[in-house]
């Protein structure tokens, strides 16, 4: 009963839209007359069936959203539509799952068994409307109602307190002598609306399945986050790596369930006094592969110098990105005998240890000045499709007839007069030239140079130029 995260919300929205098509009382009307019982309610089978579960143990706890979320994940085994009812309850729409589990009774028992398995005290109930199910569950009645017509009779017996309305409203009701929902339902609607607001009337209508109620479907967190607290402060990196390993496995599992990958991870190390150490891990491509995630994080951790002992370790994933299926090359294993890596893996392993800036690609730029005719590329194209623009550049370069040196010096090295005499005396040969490069007047770095290729005595070939204004000679490249 698992479906994609995105699909879950859509399904729910579609159901709400279907509900919304039914006439809803105009909000401007002071008090609407009671809406006619729904078509579905008139028949024995309402369209939606809600299983509500209340965990009394969670009611008082401070931050139980997290644990409710965790319980939601359990509930998603039974249906993709689960919503959180703070502070202590969950609502599951189970109409679609009945067939799969055999019968309503079997399904209800199965879900209850899940809470038992977690050693949680739970009160559950099933009813055709959200609030009816919730109220029944709060009241501790284990009811399985599949007929909207029976709702009014079942709800009438419940105490008003199980509505979990606010305290002032409940105390007013008490002073009015209303203790059961049945007594409340007998009161005139206009009177209830005047005293308690239209919301109270609406709640009653929802509970009786006369009005639809919107619930937000729970969508699993879109980020992986897990913390590991150490019993004692940890100083050994090896221990840290041991602790991280299972977390990475769970992270990979988390990604697999969502058919997603990440391109960045963050490890946070908390110290007693010092500020938190953050380690950012970058991956060359989107991945959910546990091997690659572990590889990069271990590499990064092994280079870490701990400033202080560590209290806790937390792994957070970056933004989840959908995994695109790569086609596997059938003959890839013929290329290399080892073939245990992919190009992105190699790049990210090198970057994890040597730093982001230390690993880069290069590409030509259509520009006449040699120093501007290339640039570093840090976003590596690890996919198969070559860059169309770069192809064009390459063709332009093929056209230039004079060869270019393999090494370009960072700064042209000025030749002293003695060097030039030396070049002359040592039977240096002029192979090609001059090639005049005169460009760049528009950005203030204009050059006017005559380039020559010179074979130095013994065979070293140099790319030298004469600055046309100063008449000075420079070496700019080496034909290695």
């Amino acid at each position: 009963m698992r479906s994609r995260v995105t699909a879950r919300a859509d399904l729910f929205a579609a159901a709400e839209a279907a509900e919304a098509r039914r006439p809803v009382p105009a909000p401007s009307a002071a008090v609407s007359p009671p809406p006619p019982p729904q078509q579905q309610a008139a028949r024995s089978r309402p369209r939606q069936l809600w299983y509500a579960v209340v965990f009394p143990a969670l009611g008082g706890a401070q931050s139980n959203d997290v644990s409710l979320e965790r319980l939601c994940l359990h509930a998603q085994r039974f249906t993709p539509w689960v919503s959180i009812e703070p502070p202590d309850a969950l609502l599951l729409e189970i109409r679609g799952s009945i067939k799969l589990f055999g019968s309503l009774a079997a399904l209800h028992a199965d879900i209850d068994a899940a809470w038992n398995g977690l050693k949680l005290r739970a009160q559950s109930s099933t009813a055709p409307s959200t609030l009816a199910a919730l109220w029944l569950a709060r009241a501790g009645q284990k009811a399985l109602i599949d007929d909207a017509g029976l709702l009014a009779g079942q709800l009438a017996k419940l105490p008003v307190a199980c509505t979990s309305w606010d305290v002032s409203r409940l105390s007013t009701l008490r002073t009015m002598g209303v203790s059961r929902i049945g007594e409340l339902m007998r009161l005139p609607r206009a009177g209830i609306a005047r005293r308690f607001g239209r919301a109270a009337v609406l709640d009653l209508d929802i509970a009786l399945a006369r009005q639809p109620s919107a619930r937000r479907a729970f969508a699993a967190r879109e980020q992986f986050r897990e913390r590991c607290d150490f019993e004692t402060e940890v100083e050994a990196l090896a221990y840290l790596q041991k602790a991280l390993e299972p977390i990475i496995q769970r992270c990979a599992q988390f990604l697999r369930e969502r058919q997603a990958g990440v391109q960045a991870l963050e490890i946070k190390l908390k110290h007693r006094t010092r500020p938190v150490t953050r380690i950012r891990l970058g991956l060359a491509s989107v991945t959910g592969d546990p091997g690659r995630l572990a590889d990069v994080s271990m590499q990064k951790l092994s280079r870490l110098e701990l400033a202080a002992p560590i209290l806790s370790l937390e792994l957070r994933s970056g933004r989840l990105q959908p995994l695109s299926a790569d086609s596997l090359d059938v003959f890839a294993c013929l290329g290399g005998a080892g073939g245990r890596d992919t190009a992105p893996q190699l790049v990210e392993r090198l970057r994890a240890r040597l730093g982001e800036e230390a690993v880069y690609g290069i590409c030509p730029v259509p520009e006449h000045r040699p120093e501007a005719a290339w640039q570093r590329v840090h976003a590596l194209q690890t996919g198969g499709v070559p860059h169309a623009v770069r192809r064009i550049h390459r063709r332009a370069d093929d056209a230039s007839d004079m060869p270019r040196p393999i090494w370009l010096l960072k700064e042209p090295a000025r030749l002293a007069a003695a060097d030039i005499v030396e070049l002359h005396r040592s039977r240096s040969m002029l192979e090609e030239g001059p090639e005049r490069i005169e460009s760049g007047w528009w950005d203030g770095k204009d050059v006017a140079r005559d380039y020559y290729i010179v074979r130095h005595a013994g065979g070293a070939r140099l790319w030298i130029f004469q600055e046309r204004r100063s008449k000075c000679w420079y070496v700019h490249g080496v034909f290695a």
Partner: protein
Amino acid sequence: MPREALSLGSILADARVWKLSLSSRDASAGHSPSRPVWSTGRSALDARLPGGGWPTASLIEVLLDAPGLGEVQLFLPALAQSQKVLGETSWLVWIAPPHEPFAPALAQHGIDLDRLLVVRPISATEALWAAEQALASGVCAAVLLWLKGTDDRWLRRLKLAAQAGGALGVLFRPERHRFESSPAALRLLLTRGDDSPRLDILKVQGGRPGPVELDCSAPVALSANFELT
């Protein structure tokens, strides 16, 4: 590795499967078909190397008198050819080159720059580590490494990595390491000659060491427009 590829590997390992390997396409006999050989682009040099080209899955050591003797150009034809043949798994990794590789020049030589990686490690150990990773990765056609000095143990590790990954490993070192022992399958010495650089094969597995005649274009003498200023 995906499971499919592994099973394909086991099929190919079966002696009954007759396969047309990359190297048999080179139509050069006399070498093991499991290790492709890339032509050096110079017939005189090809003739001296077993298999007729640079051996892959092994380490080649080039000892240099001085940089700029055409040491990179020795390998450029082979690099371009290997990139064409191998496709996806033909990354070139240049580790610690002495200067910036000039992209337009490499493009002129037919190198696919989309699959070229320049690595700038901060120390020799880092460089050796990076070379080992790249050689063993199986996605590299060739790994070129520039080093001032290293020890024998690391060279052995590089050789093993090259054998595992099937890449062409080239190590450039200064000439002073000439008399040290080296596990490289092929050792070359490039020195300044009278007019053009001289290439000596110091050690070649399955071949005969000795000097190699490199054909060089006839340069013109310095002309008058190269003037003192």
